[in-house]
């Protein structure tokens, strides 16, 4: 179903795509903050469980980037 905004002459889904990509971009920034946060936390307290946490935070960031790229392609 192709809906268009009469004044702008663009598809509603195109606008939705822009919003979705913007939201995912914000999410990537949030993921970077999480990585920084984990670094700050592991600097504050070391109990021998730092590496798995850093890996999870990094994995989450990579996943966020991949989802952004995926959305960029399929939307």
């Amino acid at each position, binding site marked *: 179903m192709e809906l268009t905004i009469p004044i702008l002459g663009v598809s509603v889904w195109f606008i939705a795509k822009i919003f979705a990509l913007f939201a995912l971009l914000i999410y990537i920034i949030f993921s970077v903050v*999480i990585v920084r946060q984990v670094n*700050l*936390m592991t600097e504050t*307290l070391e*109990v021998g*469980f730092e590496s798995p*946490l850093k890996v999870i935070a990094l994995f989450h960031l990579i996943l966020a980037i991949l989802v952004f790229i*995926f959305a960029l392609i*399929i*939307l």
Partner: protein
Amino acid sequence: MPDIFVADRKIEDKTKVEKRPQVKKPRVDKLKESSIHSLPGHSHNPLAAFCYYPDHARFATQDKEEQVVLLLRKHPITNLRWIIIAAVLIMAPLLLTTFPIINFLPERFQIVALISWYLLVAAFIFEEFLGWFFNVYIVTDERIVDVDFVNLVYREITDANIDQIQDVTAQMGGVVRTIFKYGDVVIQTAAEVPRIEFEAVPDPDRVSRILRDLRIEEEQEKLEGRVR
């Protein structure tokens, strides 16, 4: 010719002995490695909520010779609330089969929405876990430390010397707390922060007993004039 007056050397020596030497305070490594491992409450699990003499614990403001005696977190059962929420959030997309509220979206948007949803849930779980894991209470042979991560990038480390502790209260009440044996330890101090609270920690009675022992040890050290 014999000396008329000879100073009594023995007396001099006595006065030397009477001067209290500044003995370097021995670390608690009097406890041998093997005996530490057999202590009740000692754990090798980095996720333990109660760890007596933890093996690898270090924190940001720790002194070189300071030894961590006790590392505490909130009791694992306190995580149950967010675990249930996470389980509900994970199951939530299944409701879409019964209530197809996003069916008006094209399929490609639905896929992205679903993936984004699970990404958000993953972040929620990770954040909650980090909050539990890193908000710790530390008791060293010199002081008590409360490490708080208030939000994503803000941390607060409160500490008070053991000899500044004035009063320790162990509180345990309520059904859940009694069943799982956890509660609060409220510590009144003479430091800048008058009250430090160890919230929902396992075995609060034992924590207060350990604190009392450390206070006695500290007082004894003061009397003996031992310094670090």
